[in-house]
């Protein structure tokens, strides 16, 4: 009996080892970028390449941030992702509150419309949206990539489902005590919805940080480029400067990597929010 148990235990340890090994192998494209980014540029051209940098250096990062202007792009990306997420949290939660807690003419229609817009990806409307933004003077402006994607239908849907579970009695008794409707939303509904708001904040920040098509259509000047746009432009040049490019790639992926590793539970379990990209 003990030997059978022992056998099973060893089997499990073996399986764990194998799957971890395969996962590391799967991640080779990322690992290779990270390792290469610490190699001095001369070492990048040496054949055969060594796995680890022989003389690890931060020179590539230095040149990406200063010469390559990636400090500006990083700030632009942070600004865009943060502002767009804040706007999404405010407008989505307001809409979700009305859809969950009020009866009004047009509610069903509005809810269906919200669901339907999930079906309209940016890829389909990129030509007319460029013209709309141009008419509003929002092309080549960071606000042109902050405001339009903020009305995420996924966010409205997620928050509404969550707010439905907040009992109406709480709202009624607040009204008895003379609370205004805005006060109810701001002081009762929002604090109670923090878990759902946190989920939306994480996903929204990830989506906006990784956005490429928005800035690709909207932003033309170099100073206003986001990391994704700057990276794609750099790789499209003739005679790609890989040493700068690799460091810039790591700068671009690092915030997402940190967010993911700290909050991986949200990504690996929360399918309601994750199943639709917004």
């Amino acid at each position, binding site marked *: 009996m003990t030997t059978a148990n022992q056998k099973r235990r060893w089997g499990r340890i073996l399986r764990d080892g194998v799957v971890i090994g395969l996962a590391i192998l799967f991640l080779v494209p990322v690992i290779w970028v990270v390792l290469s980014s610490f190699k001095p540029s001369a070492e990048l051209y040496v054949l055969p390449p060594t796995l680890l940098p022989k003389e690890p250096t931060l020179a590539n990062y230095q040149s990406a941030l200063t010469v390559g202007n990636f400090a500006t792009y990083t700030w632009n990306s942070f600004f865009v992702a943060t502002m767009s997420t804040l706007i999404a949290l405010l407008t989505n939660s307001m809409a979700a509150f009305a859809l969950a807690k009020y009866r009004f003419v047009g509610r069903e229609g509005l809810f269906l419309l919200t669901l339907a817009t999930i079906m309209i990806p940016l890829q389909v409307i990129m030509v007319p949206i460029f013209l709309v933004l141009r008419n509003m003077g929002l092309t080549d402006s960071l606000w042109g990539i902050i405001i339009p994607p903020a009305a995420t239908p996924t966010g409205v849907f997620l928050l509404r489902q969550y707010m439905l579970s907040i009992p109406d009695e709480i709202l009624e008794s607040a009204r008895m005590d003379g609370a205004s409707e805005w006060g109810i939303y701001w002081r009762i509904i929002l604090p109670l919805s923090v878990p759902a708001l946190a989920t939306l904040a994480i996903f929204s920040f990830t989506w906006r940080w990784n956005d490429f098509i928005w800035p690709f259509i909207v932003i033309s000047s170099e100073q206003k480029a986001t990391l994704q746009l700057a990276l794609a432009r750099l790789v499209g040049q003739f005679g790609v400067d890989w040493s700068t490019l690799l460091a810039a790639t790591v700068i671009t992926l690092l915030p*997402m990597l940190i967010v993911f590793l700290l909050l991986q539970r949200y990504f690996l379990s929360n399918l309601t929010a994750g199943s639709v990209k917004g």
Partner: protein
Amino acid sequence: MGHRLGKLLTPYFFVAPNTLIFGIFVLLPMVYGLIYSFYRGNFISGLQQFVGLENYRKLLHDQAFLSSLLHTLVYVFLVVLLVVALSLALALALRATSLGTSLARIGFYLPVILSPVVVGVAWRWMFSSDLGVINALLSSLGQSPVPWLTDINWARAVVILASVWSMAGFYMVIFIGGLNTIPAELYQAAEVDGANPRQQFWQITLPLLAPTTLLVTILATINAFKAFEIILVLTNGGPGDATRLLVQNIYLTAFEGANPTYASAQSVVLFAILMLLTLVQMRVSRER
């Protein structure tokens, strides 16, 4: 009286900001796009002439459009096939919960959170013909280097593999969710009846997982039809137009070819395909 009116308007006040953004930046462009597709025009002077279905008729004989459509169909078919197979295999291997499988799940999911641009750069760095580590490995094994991104067929293969790599972890999680809904008693009963693991897979797992498999297939198909960024960075649609897909063709038609109305007609075709797939998906999820 004013108080009553205020109360009546409260919900509209709350939905207004979100609806306004929706309306201006999603619905309006959608309607505009549809209207443009029946016109001739450009970015400078706007719509010039109503031409009815001419743009759509032109599509039927447009070599660039038809070849991008064909490339997209082949790409979608192969990507979806590989994504479903890989994510199902990963889910089966990692369905048990232990420290090892949890860590492995994190590893296989990680590419999903990377931006498509980063995915493109990482794969281009590995498969670059002169500096890429793959060719370096090949030459150290005495093999001749392969022109991964400049040969038509190899470029297509690399583009497909990079896409599969970036998507598989996402669907793995959906498959694990599906596997967890299969009652453990079924497997115990099957074991008592002497069914081996292979029989258990074909007789229990696969049939009971069918709804999840269908959902994954449809979601992956929708996503594959929207592919653009990874390929833009990896091959820029090349060599020639070998890896140019629908979305890139729309972009090129509109912005490089300065023909927004003709590009709009192509967008409408893409939208019709996505709409059809979404309707199938809604049907399927309702039946679950």
